[in-house]
């Protein structure tokens, strides 16, 4: 909007501005905070061994972000064309062909060896490390299409984690103000699927809901009480693991009767320590109980496939 526009702007009343459409990832902070959150959650969870393993993965992701040379930003022409056609500016199929991406994956796989892990995880890592470029490219393609083959979930987890590093660094070069909504449940930066969504308490956007991309970690605004899978606002309900004393849960399943799917919604405005990927994994209990219902999980998290 130009300064001289005569369009009324009700957001000027009382200084309440419209919430930003997209919140871009800050990769250096993102993975460090995620690692810390995984460690904190591991202290009290039955899933401690897995959460510690994922904390290690997030530490490596954070290390790579601080070590790798800055990425070339997305070409402005491409970003403008994408905006015109309401498409995401990051072309993920082109992204996985770049040398920077391959380098990141190889580097990640090297570093992952130092992690403490069960034999199955170590064996899978060994297999991925010995895979040729074509096989790695095939795995990268599975990761960016958000469809991991069930017989090699462990192998793909490493490639997905490395992809998150590269995609988040690439998304961080974008201007969030220039992004446009693509479609319900599609990341406006990279076209990825959301892991879930968060109601945030950040100043200027208190109580607004943001979907969180499982690939590039961009957060984009989606109105509340709306299905992230199909966009329906009819028949949306919430389920949560019942807490003694009737206290309201801060992690819920948002269910949709129109498409019979559910996705996790985290109320960060009520508990600021919540982190979308880490808390998604640690709240596995909700997924276990939801599996008994008629709803299918819509949120995509490469660390939590199978629920």
């Amino acid at each position, binding site marked *: 909007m130009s300064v001289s526009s005569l369009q009324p702007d009700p957001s000027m009343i009382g200084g309440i501005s419209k919430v930003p459409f997209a919140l871009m990832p800050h990769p250096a902070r993102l993975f460090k905070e995620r690692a810390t959150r995984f460690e904190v959650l591991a202290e009290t969870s039955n899933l401690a061994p897995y959460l510690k393993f994922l904390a290690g993965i997030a530490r490596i992701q954070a290390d790579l972000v601080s070590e790798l040379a800055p990425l070339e930003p997305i070409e402005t022409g491409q970003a403008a064309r994408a905006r015109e056609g309401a498409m995401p500016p990051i072309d993920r199929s082109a992204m996985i062909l770049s040398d920077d991406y391959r380098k990141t994956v190889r580097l990640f796989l090297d570093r992952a060896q130092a992690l403490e892990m069960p034999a199955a995880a170590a064996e899978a890592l060994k297999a991925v490390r010995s895979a040729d470029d074509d096989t790695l490219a095939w795995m990268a393609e599975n990761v960016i299409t958000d469809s991991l083959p069930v017989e090699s979930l462990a192998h793909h987890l490493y490639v997905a984690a490395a992809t998150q590093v590269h995609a988040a660094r690439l998304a961080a070069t974008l201007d969030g103000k220039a992004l446009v909504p693509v479609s319900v449940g599609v990341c406006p930066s990279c076209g990825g699927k959301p892991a879930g969504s968060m109601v945030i308490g950040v100043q200027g956007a208190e109580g607004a809901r943001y979907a969180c991309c499982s690939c590039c970690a961009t957060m984009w605004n989606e109105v509340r009480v709306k299905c992230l899978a199909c966009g329906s606002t009819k028949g949306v309900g919430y389920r949560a*693991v019942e807490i003694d004393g009737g206290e309201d*849960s801060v992690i819920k399943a948002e269910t949709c009767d129109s498409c019979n799917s559910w996705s996790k919604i985290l109320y960060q405005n009520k508990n600021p320590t919540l982190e979308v990927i880490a808390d998604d994994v640690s709240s596995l209990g909700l997924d276990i109980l*939801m599996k008994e219902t008629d709803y299918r999980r819509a949120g995509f998290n490469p660390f939590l496939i199978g629920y």
Partner: protein
Amino acid sequence: MNMDLSRRSFLKLTGAGVAATSMGALGFSEAEAAEIAHVRPFKLATTTETRQTCPYCSVACGIIIYSKGDVRKGDNAEVMHIEGDVDHPTNRGTLCPKGAALKDFVKSPTRLLYPMHRKPGSDKFERMSWDEALDRIARLMKDDRDANFLAKNEKGLDVNRWTTTGMLAASATSNETAWATFKFAKSIGIVGFDNQARV
């Protein structure tokens, strides 16, 4: 297709963990089983978040009503919390003190749940049926309009005004309801009138 299959089997053969979940495939089945056992006795609580419009004034702020239970699933829903709807263009999540206290309005022990009537000369309200109430209101309005309706003013100009009865309508209405309310009030000549359609 062939290449795909060979890659699949390559990974299948070289990785030990083949399971339906990430955790199982990575060898964390024990932790996963512990969590499954831990959560089994728990139940899922159903809650709803419902978009509504604040009923107080004609600004018509958007609100979200949180309730326990889901009426659509046959539960008895109970309002737990009410807050401003951040997605609503009018108030963007903010509420005035009256709006912020809406939950007390809903749960107020003095809340009016059915028509009450204080007869002329009486000192107390009595409950009456909706039919009775509507019939009586219509009767009294008609009588008052017949007595006081002014079709022309002293200069002989058409004015069609009825100034002795006023109407105050609610704010939680759709555009169409507001239009119909306005049409109704103005077509019978009511001058003293306020509802959302005025804004």
